[in-house]
């Protein structure tokens, strides 16, 4: 499916406003190395590619078919795929289970056909798949930046926004999977697959529900990579006449929360955490322990971070006297050497570097806050970037910040825009480390 060498786009179109055009174009423009076969009974050539009338007409082997035709035609296309020996299918088309009884019947028909031929289906009603490491954007928008995070999402928009942010921040992603109706391939299959995928370091999952709770727990427990989950809670359900206390206080969400805790899943509370946690776990080293030192140029920003850290079980240590003595030699006279180490407004990159190097052995992680336009921050961080986690927040640095941040992130060093978000990212590292 994700490492297909040849792809057919069924419902490929010459009309640039149609999805059947966008997907074909994204495959081509994204630099897919294998063969691409547009299928359309009424065209001869689209985007310079020879068009076939149906899947069965293609002479060569096809690994993956992406289907964009109206829902009523999907069953016969799937039959063709089966006859052609295609084992992997992505159905973009909507109008199935999500629209009610009729749609459900049609979707069940697809499953029957798939079962007969041993076809695996992603979708229907989805936004496709994109494996950057296979240059395979069978989706939209076109994103080609290779990264380490696999995005699996029941919402096309959540996935697309997530992917977009990762590209904007120069991280990219490994793979994007829009689950759609999850008629066949679901979160359990994908956690298992990406758990073994060498290009993926973190699996980020947006789901509205799980199909099989036990299977989900089993696969999450076995997965050796961080799994970050965003799942909206479900509000109070109707009460039964006879109900135990235990059930009335246990919403679905509490049960899901327990499942996460027991399997080591890192649960994000909102979209922002979902993004930040994924970024942190993919690009920061493992965190062992809870002792933190904060190096900052702004006292206020550091206090905001301390609140989050302390609330979540971190120990923002008092600077040991021995370390204080060492720091005196490399910091200005008016710097505050209690943790947070406040270098104040005239901090420069060199001071940060010296403090970080001297402090590393005393704590498990360092939170670095650039609270002013500090030039050379990126170069300095790169030099210190080894061993224990250094979580970076750059804020209030305008032009310089934007430039330095871009540099750091293109080198795989995550930068967070607020002290709280940086602190929370550290909390996520700790959760996973436990």
């Amino acid at each position, binding site marked *: 499916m994700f490492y297909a060498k040849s792809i057919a786009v069924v419902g490929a179109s010459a009309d640039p406003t149609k999805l059947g055009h966008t997907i074909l174009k994204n495959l081509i423009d994204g630099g897919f190395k294998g063969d691409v076969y547009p299928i359309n009974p009424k065209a001869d050539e689209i985007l310079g590619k020879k068009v076939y009338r149906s899947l069965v007409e293609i002479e060569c082997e096809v690994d993956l078919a992406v289907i964009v035709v109206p829902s009523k035609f999907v069953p016969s296309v799937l039959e063709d795929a089966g006859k052609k020996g295609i084992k992997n299918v992505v159905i973009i088309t909507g109008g199935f289970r999500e629209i009610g009884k009729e749609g459900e019947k049609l979707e069940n028909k697809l499953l029957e056909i798939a079962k007969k031929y041993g076809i695996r289906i992603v979708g229907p009603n989805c936004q496709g798949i994109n494996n950057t490491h296979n240059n395979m954007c069978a989706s939209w928008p076109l994103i080609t930046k290779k990264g380490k995070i696999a995005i699996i999402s029941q919402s096309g928009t959540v996935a697309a926004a997530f992917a977009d942010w990762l590209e904007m921040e120069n991280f990219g992603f490994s793979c994007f999977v829009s689950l759609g109706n999850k008629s066949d391939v679901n979160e359990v299959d994908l956690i298992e697959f990406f758990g073994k995928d060498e290009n993926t370091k973190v699996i980020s999952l947006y789901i509205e529900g799980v199909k099989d709770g036990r299977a989900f727990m089993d696969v999450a427990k076995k997965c050796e990579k961080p799994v970050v989950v965003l799942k909206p809670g479900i509000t109070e359900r109707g009460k039964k006449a*006879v109900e135990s*206390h235990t059930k009335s*206080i246990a919403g679905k969400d509490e049960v899901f929360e327990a499942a996460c805790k027991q399997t080591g899943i890192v649960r994000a509370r909102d979209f922002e955490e979902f993004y930040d946690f994924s970024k942190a776990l993919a690009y920061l080293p493992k965190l062992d322990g809870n002792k933190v030192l904060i190096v900052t140029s702004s006292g206020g920003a550091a206090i905001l971070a301390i609140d989050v850290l302390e609330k979540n079980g971190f120990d923002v240590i008092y600077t040991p006297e021995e370390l204080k003595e060492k720091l005196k030699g490399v910091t200005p006279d008016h710097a505050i050497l209690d943790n947070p180490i406040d270098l104040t407004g005239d901090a420069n990159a060199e001071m940060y570097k010296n403090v970080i190097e001297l402090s590393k052995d005393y704590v498990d992680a360092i939170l670095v806050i650039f609270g002013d336009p500090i030039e050379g921050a990126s170069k300095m961080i790169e030099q210190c970037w080894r061993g224990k986690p250094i979580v970076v927040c750059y804020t209030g640095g305008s032009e310089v910040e934007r430039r330095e941040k871009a540099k750091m992130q293109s080198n795989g060093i995550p930068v967070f825009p607020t002290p709280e978000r940086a602190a929370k990212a550290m909390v996520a590292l700790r959760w996973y480390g436990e």
Partner: protein
Amino acid sequence: MVNRDNVKEIIKRALEENRFPTEAECRVVLKEYNIPVLDYGVAHSENEALEIAKKFGYPVVLKMLNAKGLHKSEVNGVRLDVRSDDEVIKHFNELKSEWGVLISPMVRGLELFVGAFQDEQFGVVLSFGTGGKYVEVYKDVSFRIAPFDEREAIKMIDETKVSKILRGYREKPKNLNAIVDLLLKLSNLMLENQEIKEIDLNPTFAFDDRIAVADARFIL
């Protein structure tokens, strides 16, 4: 050893009669699983009631028995701190039903909540927290999906506020192992008897060295 036949029989009978087990039946099931239950007796007459009360010594508690899964306290079915023969007779007559009346010694201890239910998605879920009739108000409860081990049970306990009291806030620490043991046994009970949909053991008392279930309710 768990006498599974006895347990299955109690559940089967209740299901056949289209009712829930009475608290007395629930207690028998719990005891079969070696779950510590507060002393009790079931009286079917005034004389039996007086005998049981005498055995425990005053004060005692009298509780209505029913097979409808009612919250007893909501229907005034629990009489606490009963201190004389006259009071026993009066309350016995007000509470009596075909199932008799349950009598226990009146004890004081830290009130805990222990529960379990079948979840459609994840199977058996256990819950633990602050007990008493305001469980829903305090919502100091943590959850785990069964089966789980002792380590996970301790994590589960430590997620609650009441764990701080159990671990010795302003008084002697309580026996945490007894609670872990109860959670593991209750999880077994649920896993082996899928006909039971929900269980409330509320309150379960924590004393310094042991715990005891003081009220039990099963929903089938």
